[in-house]
């Protein structure tokens, strides 16, 4: 039961981090072999948000 709960929380946190773009940032750092920094976040975030807000939003 504890294991199931731990897995549930792990998945829930992962969903929240995906929605928050934090996982995408980690992927970006991995893909480009870079370390986290303010400059890197701004670079990632600008591109991510530019793409995100070109797509229609659901009603």
């Amino acid at each position, binding site marked *: 039961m504890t294991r199931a709960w731990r897995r549930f929380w792990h998945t829930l946190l992962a969903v929240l981090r995906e929605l928050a773009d934090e996982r995408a940032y980690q992927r970006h750092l991995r*893909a480009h072999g870079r370390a986290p920094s303010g400059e890197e976040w701004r670079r990632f*975030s600008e591109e991510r*948000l530019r793409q995100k807000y070109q797509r229609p939003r659901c009603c």
Partner: protein
Amino acid sequence: MGKLLRTGAWILVAAAGAFALAGVALKRGEPVNSAWLVTAAVCTYLAAYRFYSAFIAAKVMALDDRRATPAERLRNGHDFEPTNKWIVFGHHFAAIAGPGPLVGPTLAAQFGYLPGTLWIILGVVLGGAVQDFVILFASVRRDGKSLGQMAREEIGRIGGGIALLTVLLIMIILLAVIGLVVVNALKGSPWGTFTIAATMPIAVFMGLYLRYWRPGRVLEVSLIGFLLVVASIFAGEWVAHHAVLGPWFTLGGMALAIALIIYGYAASALPVWLLLAPRDYLSTFVKLGVVLLLGLGVLIVRPDLQMPALTQFTDGTGPIFAGKIFPFCFITIACGAISGFHALISSGTTPKLIARESHIRPVGYGSMLLESFVAMMALVAACALEPGVFFAVNSPAGIVGATPAAAAATITSWGFPVTPQQMSELARHVGEETLFYRTGGAPSLALGMAHIFSRIAGNEAVLRFWYHFAIMFEALFILTVIDAGTRVGRFMLQDFLGHIWKPLGRTSWMPSVLLTSALIVAAWGYFLVQGVLDPLGGINSLWPLFGIANQLLAAVALCVATTILIKMHGAKYMWITTIPLAWLVTVTFAGAWQKIFSSAPRVGFLAQARLLEAGPQTAQTKQLIFNNRLDAVVCGIFLVLVAAILADSIRVWAGILRGTREARSFEAPFAPSQLEAEELG
């Protein structure tokens, strides 16, 4: 033995669902507990997911986990990334769940709880979830292509063009109608207006925090933002009673509409990280949290439904919006049953994250079932209110009378007793001046939610907090749709204008940004102001327009889906998408036709214009006449678009089935998957 047990369990689920559905449909003259609706819905969803979606997945789509998805083949660490199915599920659900499934069922409650319940349950399992599922599958098999690209490839240039034009038109109507919902919720409410105004500096603070102080800490700043928003709800009560600040935040409909238009323009033109993105993060988490809370609340409280199964307004004389149960119930409730907009999400980000083909089923079909459940919860919250209160909140003054006494008398004469004292007591409990004429669905939904929440956490004393919490929640994510939608509309317009004069297409060229933002804001702002000025409340004309447009997009998506199924299997499985398509086309045509040509002035735009022409002519009357004719033209455009895409699709289908046209597949070629299970953390 195991198989026998499983079969027995599914027989039990089916029997419980059938029994609950029969109970919901046949019970009359006594309050029905919401548990009946919840049981009917959940059992139907379970059975549909287990059997119908499994049939489509196995026989029609032949989902194959050995086949590499675009997330794996085109993996780039940005858009294309194989992702755990529950994470994609959460992502997809957060993207499809907007204000539609909350507002639509609330408005349709004027017909009683039964029509909305049946449409939400049956519409989703046979239509909405099928559409999302098939489009997601088609997009995954086509390298994550968008609906417009697939329409162009599978049907032809006309289909692709119509898809693009439809999206732009829907955006304009959608932004106007949800803007009107916010305006009506905040009209004359200093508490609500202050709370929503406070979310703007909070969002800017979050934007700065995220960009300069703690880069990348989105969850952390969202939690801080949420605490600040909750604090602003408490501060809102103080502001509302403040001698100087109170009147500042007490705004009329027109002032709020203008504020919203200015806000939409600013949010579209400002850097996205400053206002839009932090609000969006915050509103996504608040939305998911409140939806979960509402679901839990309904399951725990299980309120009795005060609204009858069917009201007399099925005959088309409803005060919230005019029009008979057919087709207007099916247009009013779009999201929650079937929504064309979902096809854009199913062919947007989601297909690029799907790691295995078997994940398409829980994400495409499953998350739409969850959205349908949200719509059921909204319907329960609305129908749990006393009908007299529900109609007093949602009816415009032009229908029920301009004074509380007149409104209460009119509503009581319909068989739904309510008194001005009762309404004034309720308004006092929730910290509002009045709750009469608060059309748009948001305040009545907030009332329903506040009653449910206060029965779990607190009592009547905290009703005012929960009411304003619910208003904040609704307005927060509606405003996020408005600012993001305005921005998307601006990009679409720039894309189009770039073909005429190249610099206009450059998204970084400020004059083009300012011009196109102004054009988009002016377009939805015009319809918003029209709604504010409408003596019939605005929702009566704008919500059906939005519903028709949304169902039109669903028709486009189902045409694409049918074309793909015909190319895969000939006529064998085309019924899966043509049944919901035939229903949608019937509903959309009937709805649009009536909105244009009905002789009843409250239903038909042209009849309303003629009625106004016959009366005294003032500047405002002339404007109303023009608005009604404009709405008729917009509705006519929708009709023509449906007819064009349908005719084009039928031409393609007939050609393929007769063998005179090549059934060319645009699927990406098979490539074996190399993905390991541990890569999907």
